[in-house]
């Protein structure tokens, strides 16, 4: 088991957003968490990246190691967990290239870094053309590509993706998802959070359904796609 999350509880200002969430991911898998607005999907990812404080009793382990004991930057640099946060959160004052370079801050394998950079530019040619442009001036779709590219540079064991399809045209969306499939084939495990449940379930192998901070269903995605309740609530009948 690559990542194991047990009894995850998170509160914002005393209001609980996650009420003891359990799930796990095996190496090489694509897993998705779907749910309505405010269900707690982003909060789950933030807890893994230490962007929010978890409550006592929560457990998150990566290959048996207690992830919560590591400082936030080492979750990335030592465990290889990268995170494409909700809303992209690029550094708009840095250039495209600098955004990608910053993501390799703790990496010392400069040959591999170069190779990864080449691959990001090969996948997203638009970024290569605009590498010296400030990230803040990119179009929405280009920004999303850069957000995914940045995650590719920082860690390749497990990638946490928070709504990567947001704001993308259908064509670009399929491009991004194609490249994610390829990244997965090369060995990166993916945890995908999406509002677009149909697309997420088609893309992933296993899924978890999050409702009001609790996992209410989980299983292989074919089963969830055919589940009448899921169909009715999340797939538009």
């Amino acid at each position, binding site marked *: 088991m690559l990542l194991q999350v047990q009894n995850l509880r998170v509160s914002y200002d005393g209001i609980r957003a996650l009420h003891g969430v359990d799930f796990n991911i095996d190496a090489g898998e694509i897993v998705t968490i779907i749910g309505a607005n405010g269900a707690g999907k982003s909060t789950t990812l*933030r807890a893994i*990246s*230490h*962007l*929010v404080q978890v409550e006592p009793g929560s457990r998150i382990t990566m290959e048996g190691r207690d992830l919560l004991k590591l*400082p*936030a*930057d*080492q*979750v*990335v*640099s030592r465990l290889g967990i*990268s*995170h494409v*946060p909700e809303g992209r*959160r690029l*550094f*708009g*004052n*840095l250039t495209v290239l*600098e955004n990608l*370079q*910053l*993501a*390799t*801050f*703790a*990496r010392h394998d400069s040959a591999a870094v170069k190779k990864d950079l080449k691959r990001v530019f090969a996948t997203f040619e638009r970024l290569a053309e605009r590498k010296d442009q400030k990230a803040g001036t990119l179009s929405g779709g280009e920004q999303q590509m850069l957000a995914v590219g*940045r995650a590719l540079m*920082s*860690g390749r064991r497990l990638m946490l993706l928070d709504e990567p399809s947001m704001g993308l045209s259908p064509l670009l969306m399929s491009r991004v998802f194609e490249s994610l499939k390829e990244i997965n084939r090369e060995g990166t495990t993916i945890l995908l959070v999406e509002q677009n449940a149909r697309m997420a379930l088609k893309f992933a192998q296993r899924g978890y359904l999050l409702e009001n901070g609790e996992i209410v269903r989980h299983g292989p995605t074919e089963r969830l796609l055919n589940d009448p309740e899921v169909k009715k609530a999340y797939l538009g009948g």
Partner: protein
Amino acid sequence: MTYFLQNLVNALQWGSFYALIALGYSMVYSILMLFNFAHGDIFMVGAYIGFGVASALVAFNSLGLVVLPGWLLLVLTILVSMLLTSFVGMLVERIGYRPLRDAPRASAAITGLMIGIILETGNLALLGAQRVRLPTMIQSVTYDLGGVFITNKKIMIVLVSLGLMLTLHQFVRRTKWGMAMRAMAYDYAVVPLMGVPLNKIAAMTFAIGSALAAAAGILYGVAYPVLDPYMGIVFGWKAFVAAILGGRGSIMGACLAGFLLGFIEIFVTMVFPSTLRDLIAYGIIMLILVFRPHGFFGEAYSARLRL
């Protein structure tokens, strides 16, 4: 005209002091959104450390343990003192500010003022009330450029300051640590997602700011050798004004505003009695801020997000 040029040189010298100190305020503000109100006293500590280092070096020299020319003594004094003072800055960050990272900004400001008092009174306790003199390391040489008298010290002070500013500029533009600083200024919360240790960058920023303040302290001591434990207060506030005037968090702005401050102060005394200098000079700056509340290069950092 020669009178004007003469004052221009003086203005550049004073501007150098303000600019070097203002940089520390600006850098810390841009990455941590706090004003380190102990920074003026770090300038004082830097000058005193310079006094200690220079005295030791000069003593070694006169004992014949080392035989170094005066300019090399000065260079060594500046470098060693910058290094030592950077540790003081890191200590202040670690003990004073890191525990307050998520506390209201007012708590951090009060802490800064208290650290300042500790540094001043600590110095008094350590060295007593009498003032100390920075040993003379280079002899003054005055050049007469068509009626404008310029000393080698003034030229040195301005050139060294400009060199340090350019070095900092390159560091922030070109290195990955500088890149991390710029990223922190833009969106602090997501920087750890890049594998960047926030605490190290914060400590480094304090270290750099303190080292620059130490350089300012020693350069000041070269021009005006008598040091006292409260010398950092007025300098600290004026440099803080320069940091605000330059635009919060802007390196370029802090430098320019530091020099502008020097110019305004010196040129006010060309026209008015020197007792009115600060009153008029800072009146002018207040007027500028009324029309440009964000300073020269200040962005309204309202878009700063927190997760």
